[in-house]
């Protein structure tokens, strides 16, 4: 259920909204009545706070608590099970679960390669788009955004047909010149997956970067041009430095998305089973535990661990990249 939400997270995320919430009272403040202002501000925040509690704090709390339990049976194991408090038992099990950490390392390393390529291309496209006429911009903007609009399951299915060892049109064409491409070899698997992800993500990130480009005061370019700077120099020395905040933002969300990778390997392994295992990513393991085994407690504990690790990595990424801005 999180899959679709994940992709839209950059727009609707509570984190993004959270930044705005504390500032709300200031807007309502009027001279002489600070208390009324605060109350009004609070009233304005209520819908958000209620939603935040209902769809965020409570489910997260429930997940953490559920992860502290385990289903216990007796005898033959049939009949109602008892829920037994096991403290950190599930977390200790995860700590020793090599497959979970292998999966996590896999998505982390994969993300470390895929994200810079994807963001680099998105940046390049945004800069190119910034340099062309307004009518062409509209055309390209829509074109690049379409893959993002396609639900990721559908996108993965489209690529599944293209990659299928049985019916791939790419391979049936390549075979005419005596070549068969193994899309799911030890290395090509990552290229295959990476291609799908870049295809899906590039448009959205490009739009964000492009919007940020529009916010840069045009006077800066004029001043640079008067000083004799080339377009390339303007891009490198004015545009890109001014884009740092949006690059940090898109980068951070890409990191989060990468660690929560599920749909694409889940669907593509239907034909790429040789290299994409059932436990290829941590999210797949969580999905299997909950949906196939009915082991919600272990799934909840894994979700908690994944969230914490993701949070830490996102924080580290944010600190590292943000430091550069002030330097």
């Amino acid at each position, binding site marked *: *259920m999180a*899959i*679709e939400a994940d992709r839209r997270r950059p727009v609707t995320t509570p984190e993004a909204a959270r930044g705005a919430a504390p500032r709300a009272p200031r807007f309502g403040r009027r001279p002489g009545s600070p208390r009324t202002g605060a109350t009004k501000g609070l009233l304005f925040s209520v819908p958000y706070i209620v939603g935040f509690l209902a769809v965020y704090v409570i489910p997260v709390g429930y997940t953490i608590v559920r992860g502290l339990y*385990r*289903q*216990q*049976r*007796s*005898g*033959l*194991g*049939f*009949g*109602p*099970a008892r829920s037994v408090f096991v403290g950190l038992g599930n977390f200790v099990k995860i700590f020793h679960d090599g497959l979970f950490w292998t999966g996590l390392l896999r998505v982390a390393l994969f993300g470390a390669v895929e994200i810079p390529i994807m963001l680099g291309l998105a940046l390049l496209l945004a800069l190119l788009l910034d340099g062309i006429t307004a009518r062409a911009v509209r055309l390209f903007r829509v074109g690049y955004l379409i893959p993002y609009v396609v639900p990721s*399951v559908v996108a993965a*299915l489209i690529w*599944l*047909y293209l990659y*299928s*060892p*049985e*019916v791939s049109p790419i391979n049936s064409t390549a075979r005419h010149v005596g070549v068969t491409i193994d899309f799911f070899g030890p290395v090509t698997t990552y290229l295959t997956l990476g291609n799908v992800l870049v295809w899906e993500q590039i448009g959205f990130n490009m739009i964000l970067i492009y919007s940020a480009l529009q916010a840069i005061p045009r006077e800066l370019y004029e001043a640079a041009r008067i000083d004799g700077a080339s377009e390339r120099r303007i891009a490198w020395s004015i545009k890109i430095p001014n884009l740092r905040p949006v690059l940090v933002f898109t980068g951070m969300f890409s990191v989060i998305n990468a660690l929560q990778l599920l*749909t694409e390997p*889940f*669907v593509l392994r*239907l*034909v790429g*089973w*040789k290299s994409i*295992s*059932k*436990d290829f990513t941590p999210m797949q393991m969580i999905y*299997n535990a*909950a*949906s*196939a*085994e*009915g*082991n919600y407690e272990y799934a909840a504990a894994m979700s908690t661990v994944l969230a914490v690790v993701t949070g830490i990595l996102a924080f580290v990424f944010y600190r590292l990249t943000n430091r550069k801005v002030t330097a």
Partner: protein
Amino acid sequence: MRTTLKGRAGAVVSICALAAALAGCGGGSGSAKADGPVTLTFWGEAEGLSKQTAAWNAAHPDIQVKFTKVTLGYPDYQKIAAAVKAGNGPCVGQTDAEHLVTFASQGLVQDITKYAGKYQNLFTAPAWKAMSPGGTTYALPLSASPNFFAYRTDLYKKYGLTPPKTWDEFIAGGKKLRAADPKLKMMNYAPEDPSGFVGLVWEAGGNWYKQSGNGWQVTFTSPESLKAANVLQQFVDGKLLSSVSYSDPGVWKTWDDGGTLSMTTSTWQLPIYAKSFPKSDGKWAITTVPQYAAGESSTDSGYRGVTVYKGCKDPQQAVKFAAWLGGDKAPVGALADPNSGSGLFPALKDVTPYVADVAPKKMIPQSDAAQVITTAAGQVNAAWEFGPDYATMYQKMQTYWPKVLSGQLKVTDMLNEMQRFVVGDLKSQGINVVAG
């Protein structure tokens, strides 16, 4: 093969289905009234159930059944489990034997032994056993899917093969075939689907979960299991198998184009093949599965049943309906017909009135096809049992399965791992277990 044909669509649909699960599943449990008619809710998948339920309703004004069509697969069963836990589940529901144990292990189905006992003699012993894990009856059999062997008559003739009576003959035939053209394969084992191996173990008389008293003896490395492992290892080492996923859009071409010449299969798949094999229509024949030794007669079978969920307030009426659906002449006949039903092969002891049309004649023109299937249904090995963590076990085996098929992992190594894993898993749940 049995479960994953459905899984093909199911795997993809499942992600979307999760969203649907949030929206609630509707339906309610049966309502108890001191007098007057009761209404039972019934969730099922098989084609034709809706029509049969209507027929039941017309004849039984006092027990009205409200049918809802659902899809059944791994994630769908979890949805049903969640609905039952939340009190929104159905009263009766169609289920596979392997999922029935999962429900039973979660306490989501009712012990109906006292109501169901009187129907036991109608059904075959292995079918009844499959509905009664641990000796407690939770469901009534609806249908069986006895395993048999199908092969391409034109290609077997072309390459000088005879339908194998034993697995040794099968392997020898495969080698002969490879000598003619290394691209040709004897059979397809899908990479997501170890059920072919489960069938081999079942046929050998193996049983991974042996009930002993109030506990389980876990026997992944029994002599029978190792016998099956030996055969599978020879398939892999001899490169006799294709490994196309049922989720691959091109899966049917595997057989239809003639690259893979035979399969072990069952009744419910036949209508699907009949639709999906345009080129090889009429070039198929069936026979009983190859045996471990000449003269033996054993096979495996899937079973579907109709179970009574926790929260159903009218279990007695529910059992009556379930027994009618799987045991009465009219519904059984209608459901067995591939045209009006879904080719559900009855789980009854006497199937003769129902099987005439069970094999699609266009695909399999042979005259004794129904007889072959009936024979197979009577030869199902009774040793097999489904254990309480079968779903978790199967998940684990699915992670090893691709490695086994590609030869990276020996079958015996997988069995050793499974033995260790299942013993540990049962123990951690507090279930009595001994390694055997």
